[in-house]
């Protein structure tokens, strides 16, 4: 029963992951075009006022979304040589505890991310005049995705096996 549930979660995660990697490509290409535009407009015409701001916001979005892919892959930089020296069961317990702590951080990103958004009702970006509420969305959104990924990892932990042994 739990296994089937986990498999369903995993396949949803795969879907999210592949959508995000297309989104990351799109955002990066966008940033690439915008900065080229900035260079061309400044060198040959008059500089646009919005290119610098837009590329900064794109950088934040693309970085956070790419970070969720890295998180799923387990690619984020970590010290692994200590944990590797433990036995398998101890390793699983340590990972379980660390995942719980990570989950609290993602919950902070989500809850206080939305709180920050609710505090910025009238704030608009200086150059493009887009509501900052939209720009700030990237933090709680990526928090939700990483929380989902870490919950799958937490589900993998097998309590019953620990009890029986």
């Amino acid at each position, binding site marked *: 029963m739990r296994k089937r549930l986990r498999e369903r979660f995993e396949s949803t995660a795969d879907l999210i992951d592949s959508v995000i990697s297309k989104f990351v490509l799109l955002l*990066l290409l966008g940033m*690439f075009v915008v900065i080229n535009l900035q260079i061309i407009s400044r060198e040959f015409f008059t500089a646009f006022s919005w290119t610098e701001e837009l590329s900064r916001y794109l*950088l934040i979005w*693309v970085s956070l979304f790419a970070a969720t892919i890295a998180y799923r892959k387990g690619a*984020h930089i970590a010290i692994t040589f200590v944990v590797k020296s433990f036995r398998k069961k101890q390793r699983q317990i340590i990972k379980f505890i660390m995942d719980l702590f990570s989950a609290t*951080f993602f919950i*902070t990103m989500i809850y206080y991310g939305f709180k*920050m958004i609710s505090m910025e009702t009238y704030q608009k970006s200086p150059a493009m005049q887009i509501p900052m509420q939209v720009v700030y969305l990237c933090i709680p959104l990526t928090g939700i995705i990483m929380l989902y990924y870490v919950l799958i990892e937490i589900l993998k932990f097998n309590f019953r096996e620990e009890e029986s042994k």
Partner: protein
Amino acid sequence: MSAGIVFLLLFTTFSLFLIFGMPIAIAIGTSSFIILLLGKIPLVIVPQRMFAGMDSFALIAVPFFILAGDLMSEGKTSELIMDFVESLLSFLKGALWPVAVLTAMIFAGISGSSAADTAAVAGALIPELKRRKYDKDFSSALIASAGSIGIVIPPSVPMILYAFITYASISKLFLNGFIPGTLMGVALAAIALRKAYKEHYAGGGRLSFRNIWATFKTAIWGLLTPIIILGGIFSGKFTPSESAVIAVDWAIIVSLYIYRDKRWKDIFRIIVKSMITASLVMFLISTARVFAWILANWSIPTMLTNGVLSISTNKFVIILLIDLILLIAGIFLETASIIIIFTPLLFGLATSIGISPVHFGIIETVALAIGMVTPPVAINLYVVSGVTGIPIEQISKAEIPLLLALIGVLILVTYLPMIFPKIIF
């Protein structure tokens, strides 16, 4: 809470999370979040600092320099540069070793990360080194060490991060990277040549100008990359971020239309791959800003500076201590993490004894370059080991003389500008 308690709590929780394998970016965020909670500080600081931590045009250089390096290292560019360098150096015995070093130095001008530099040189040279029966362990160690020059000779992602944290000038840091990078290259090549002449390696042919010209003509497109990047920055025409984007423009043109070694499909794949690599650094910068906020709020760097200065005020001793801290950190941590965690802590101390921000940035970069070849956490050794299949332990043994030479360069880079301040531009 007093600064001392905050410092102690922050670093114990952070070290525990780290040792137990939590990703550094999340460990730094979680330990900061615990301190904020205990200090009764509104937690909305967390998303605010995370956002502000990445909100900088200068940081755009990070993904694009990584991308330019990845685009150029996958494909023919590094092989063509190697062929050209070999035609220049083939009169030496054991020529492939200095070729590896010089190729790494040229590629350092294209790539902003040492891992990409190492991968490019290893990919191009290892098959040839194997075919000509060069000492495998030493060759691997040499390529790993030469690859570390990737972050010392500009462009350099760690220097961009350092400049972002300390407000030092990126172009000044870049400009001052050439001499230390060259010193590292010369030191490594000298050790390799000594070994080659002692063990009577083959080589020592005559220089062929026809060959030099022929290889130069095809390699020129790759060789132009550093000139385009650095020319743009040093002429003041483009910001480093814009130069990074221009480098990507150039890399795409070269691989699609000149060398024709990639299609759009490959470029899209490399873009996503590079962005994921860049996101590791970006996410870390983002969460580390919460950590930096805590350090500043409780004036922890001032506390540390005063603590150290109460023990000794001899600037030569203090800078030696800083070098040691950075080298030891380099054994256990990865480059970007050290820059992001240690710079805010040590910068005040270094400047209080009269080290200029640019000089300290160079010291830090060279020390961290060495950290890339000191196991267990040594990205360059892993990259080379991945290409050659030789285990890390074996490469590390051959690494020792090279490591000592690099430490010698670090000492020169640390002390010479303290005695002759004019050599920092």
